[in-house]
């Protein structure tokens, strides 16, 4: 069963269609990367799914509950806004206990949850300090902690690491990766490296529409480049340049470029070229150190998809 099911979601602001028939299914237990350029409709989608905004059309369920501002939905989800805001006069522990109170947890349970979460997000030592004095990174970690107070089935994270420094980003992404299997994580971002690092599945949104949803490896395979890279060891054996000159004559090879001890070979037919190249390398007598199909980065896939969408 899908943890999140969205059908034809539409959101209009006057003449602007922020969401234009968005449909999506997110598998339970996955870490879903909701990827899109600024203004694509990521935050709007999350606000609708968390009950903070109303859809103009379509329907959606989260953890089996119809969206809208209702207690049943709120009990099942956790939400971290892009810039989480807190009551500055409260301490971190006090805030988490207050959130626990809003979930109807008893005093002992909410204290226990708060203490566990403070340790988990690395805020134990500052638990009694007023939030007003917290840095951006500390606020983000507290934001994640408050989103986990109710042990949610679905956790919505809106750009959780975008505004953080490298160390803060690493910590937050490690925290998110640590949630794998505990709940479904729906994470919006425009930073591709973050998605590559933690997400199983990726959905690309552009101008309010889903462009593509796939597992990360499927996506990069689907957009695989017809390029192989061979790296050899310089050991006084046959010359790499000579071998490259020979293979350039083959109809399967479109282009071959030598770069030191490596060669980048663009081919015409990936499957046939793979077998042929391996055979040719075995016969060449070159000391091959590495042979790999060059995978596109998520960034290349993303830009391809967005450009295709813009062109269509």
């Amino acid at each position, binding site marked *: 069963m899908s943890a999140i099911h969205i059908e034809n979601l539409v959101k209009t602001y006057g003449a602007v269609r922020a969401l234009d028939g968005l449909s999506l299914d997110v598998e339970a237990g996955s870490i879903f990367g909701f990827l899109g350029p600024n203004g694509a409709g990521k935050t709007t989608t999350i606000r609708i799914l968390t*009950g*903070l*905004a109303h859809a103009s059309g379509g329907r959606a369920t989260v953890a089996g509950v119809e969206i809208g*501002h209702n*207690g049943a939905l*709120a009990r099942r989800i956790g939400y971290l806004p892009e*810039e989480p805001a*807190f009551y500055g006069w409260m301490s971190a522990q006090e805030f988490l206990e207050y959130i626990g109170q809003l979930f109807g947890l008893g005093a002992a349970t909410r204290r226990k949850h708060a203490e566990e979460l403070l340790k988990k997000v690395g805020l134990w030592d500052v638990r009694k300090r007023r939030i007003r004095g917290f840095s951006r990174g500390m606020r983000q970690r507290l934001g994640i902690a408050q989103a986990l107070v109710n042990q949610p089935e679905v956790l919505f994270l809106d750009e959780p690491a975008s505004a953080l420094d490298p160390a803060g980003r690493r910590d937050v992404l490690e925290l998110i990766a640590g949630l794998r299997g505990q709940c479904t994580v729906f994470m919006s971002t425009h930073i591709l490296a973050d998605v590559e690092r933690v997400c199983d599945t990726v959905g690309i949104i552009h101008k309010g529409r889903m462009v593509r949803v796939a597992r990360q490896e499927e996506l990069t395979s689907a957009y695989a480049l017809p390029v192989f890279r061979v790296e050899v060891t310089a050991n006084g054996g046959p010359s790499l340049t000579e071998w490259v000159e020979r293979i350039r004559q083959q109809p399967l090879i479109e282009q071959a470029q030598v770069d030191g001890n490596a060669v980048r070979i663009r081919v015409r037919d990936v499957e046939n070229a793979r077998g042929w190249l391996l055979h040719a390398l075995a016969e060449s007598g070159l000391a091959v150190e590495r042979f790999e199909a060059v995978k596109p980065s998520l960034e290349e896939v993303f830009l391809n998809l967005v450009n295709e969408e813009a062109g269509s």
Partner: protein
Amino acid sequence: MNLFWAAFSKELREQWRTYRLLVTVSVLSLFGLLSPLLAYFTPQILGAVPGAEAIGELIPPPTVMDAIGQYIKNLSQFAILFAILLPMGAVSNEKERGTAALVLSKPLPRGAFLMAKAAAFGLVFALSLLIAGLAGYYYTGLLFEYPRFDLWLAMNGLIWLYAMVYVGLTLLFSTLSRSQALAAGLSFAVLLGLGVASISEKVAVYLPAQLINWGGMLFIQPEASYWGSLWISAAMLAGSLLAAWLIFRRQEL
């Protein structure tokens, strides 16, 4: 109900920790205490001013009614000021900063969020007027004579309701707008508008400000009553909170 109490206790802690409760109690208590003192000592103060001794002699000896008049005038003015200044950012600031979106993504109903604020302000004003009232009562009795305690209590109750009308209105305007300045401006505009409307005596007896007149009249004509003003004030308070809830439940955060 548990969620209301959770939000209510948070609001009270906020009033305490941000010193709003302390400031409101202190200012209202100070004026509660000063009112009978001012009434008592004004002729002496004026008489002590060089060259103005004659004015001091012209002023008739102050009575308990002067102390009560001074008290009700000072307290109602400051209560209204605080009734607009305290809640002006209660909702708009939370929407603007994002704390409303964060806590309302939890199972806290929007009605409980709003009512907790209204109830907390109600308690802050009740506590402030209680302390101010006791201080004013004590000094009035000490310097003049003790007025009837039940009437004194009723007078403070009327000031409380008068202030709460503006708490309700300001909460409504704070819900409507994202700016606390606009919320306060709208409340002051209503205050001014009702002041203009009260030029007509027929209308004035039904307006919230009549509660203050009624408070003063309690000690002169205890049988005089302005129930129309009381019911309209209560309806304005309830109507403002209801409208705030109806608007807030449809608002996007």
